[in-house]
């Protein structure tokens, strides 16, 4: 039986962001941009979608007088990611 894949996570960039954040406590926006190789605009849009879904927490701070965006996966995000991976496994040949 195939499980339905979470549409929020079943997108290249959003999944990449979540996969990065699952392994760390928190990461700066520039780090995520660098690791995913995405543009700032696209990444910002996708992170907003993840934030609206309650999967990531975004905090704006200042570092050396420059604005700094820090992203962190939420408990809801971890649960959704685990469910997505489980659902993904049901699609794989056994």
């Amino acid at each position, binding site marked *: 039986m195939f499980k339905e*894949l979470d549409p929020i996570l*079943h*997108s*290249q*960039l959003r*999944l*990449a962001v979540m*996969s*990065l954040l*699952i*392994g*760390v*406590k*928190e*990461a*700066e926006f*520039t*780090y995520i941009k660098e*690791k*995913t*190789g*995405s543009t700032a605009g*696209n990444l910002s849009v*996708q992170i907003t979608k993840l934030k609206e879904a309650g999967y990531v927490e975004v905090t704006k701070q200042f*570092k*050396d007088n420059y604005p700094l965006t820090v992203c962190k996966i939420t408990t809801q995000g971890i649960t959704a990611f685990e469910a*997505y*991976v489980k659902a*993904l496994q049901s*699609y*794989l040949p056994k």
Partner: protein
Amino acid sequence: MEEKQLSEKESLLIIQQMISRAKNEFVDTGVGPILWGAVIAVCSLVQFLQIQFDYRLPFDIWLLAILAIVPQIYISVKESRERKVKGWDQDVMGYVWLCFGVGIFLVNVINNVAAHQLNPILSEYGKISGKTDVPNFWTFGTGYLLFVYGYPTIVTGAARKFKLMTFGGIFCWISAIISAFTVAKIDFIFMALSATLAWLVPGIILRRNYLLQKEKNV
């Protein structure tokens, strides 16, 4: 990275790639272990030489260890400012080493108080009894320090899966036991060896890995 419909295989590949990229980020710069490994090894060796040749420096060599706190604070602040990502165990490791610093301070205070109280009695006993092999407190004091050295080193080595550091920590504990049976002079040799194996050598390896990783990321 563009937006497109993903196949299940592509999803798994993305997850795998990103987790591996995040994992590669946690490479210690190695500066802290090199600094402390070198400072403790040098202080211990100088202490050994002072006892061996019955020579006293005009200052206490262990002041170097106190002075080393200044560059350590600078390194910690700099590394934390440059860090764009924080790992799950980073805070825990920070607390482990903070407790180590406090632990070393406490053991040193207790050791000094004990030495101050016991050494005159032991020396007096030696004179009265005519025995020449009456030990002083420092014959045992180094063992406590070596035990404290080993603790956070083993925890860090095990948490970071860095076997050499774990081995270095275990060596500190073995040295702690041996130092209970050897004179203070020899204890300082074990202390120098422990600092070299627990921090200096792993630090050099960490530094090399860090620089290689940095080169790859450029």
